[in-house]
């Protein structure tokens, strides 16, 4: 079975530009979460989507937005890029979304974003 896939693998953008990252969950998984991993740190939660609705948001500015499509794939958008947005962006999928969920999240390989 295919795992979580993300595209592109690497991306270089200039300050002030906008970027869109894409994620396809494991087949049968309806929940997608996005995390930002800055070099040398653990991943930080950005968003969770389930059934096309936002179910959780981390402490990120409004420049960050996301959406989930009917096929459960997801996009993460970042506007007005800053140097500090340079990071590995990870997508994770799981079978369901609730706080009581017993299911673990499975992560994709990530998109490495470099802002110059």
């Amino acid at each position, binding site marked *: 079975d295919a795992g*979580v896939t*993300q595209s592109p693998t690497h991306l270089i953008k200039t300050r002030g530009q906008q970027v869109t990252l894409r994620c396809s969950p494991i087949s049968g998984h309806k*929940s997608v*979460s996005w*995390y930002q991993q800055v070099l*040398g*740190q*653990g*991943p*930080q*939660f950005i*968003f*969770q989507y*389930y059934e096309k609705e*936002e*179910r*959780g*948001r*981390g402490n990120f500015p409004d420049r960050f937005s996301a959406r989930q499509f009917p096929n459960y794939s997801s996009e993460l958008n970042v506007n007005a890029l800053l140097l500090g947005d340079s990071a590995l962006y*990870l997508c*994770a999928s*799981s079978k369901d*979304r*609730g*706080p*009581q*969920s*017993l299911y*673990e*999240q*499975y*992560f*994709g*390989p*990530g998109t490495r974003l470099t802002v110059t």
Partner: protein
Amino acid sequence: AQSVAQPEDQVNVAEGNPLTVKCTYSVSGNPYLFWYVQYPNRGLQFLLKYITGDNLVKGSYGFEAEFNKSQTSFHLKKPSALVSDSALYFCAVRPIYNQGGKLIFGQGTELSVKP
């Protein structure tokens, strides 16, 4: 504030020796606990989880973890380390009463296993 601490930035072990990677957490209620491993330029790979029940949980590749509620710890262990276990290990918690099932990660521990 909810947090996860991995007190060791790096753990060095000789191949064949037992290994322990430490994790403590500060979360209200009874959280769900996870361990993930990250190889260079790769995403996170799930190792094991504690939800409820037996305090010792077994996971992938011979790893296990011990949950200690009184010490709010969830240490990762393996009886005999392999060179291929060298990687970055993350402990994560998911508070039961939180938004959207988010994971809170520690800062990671670099495990180095020497032959």
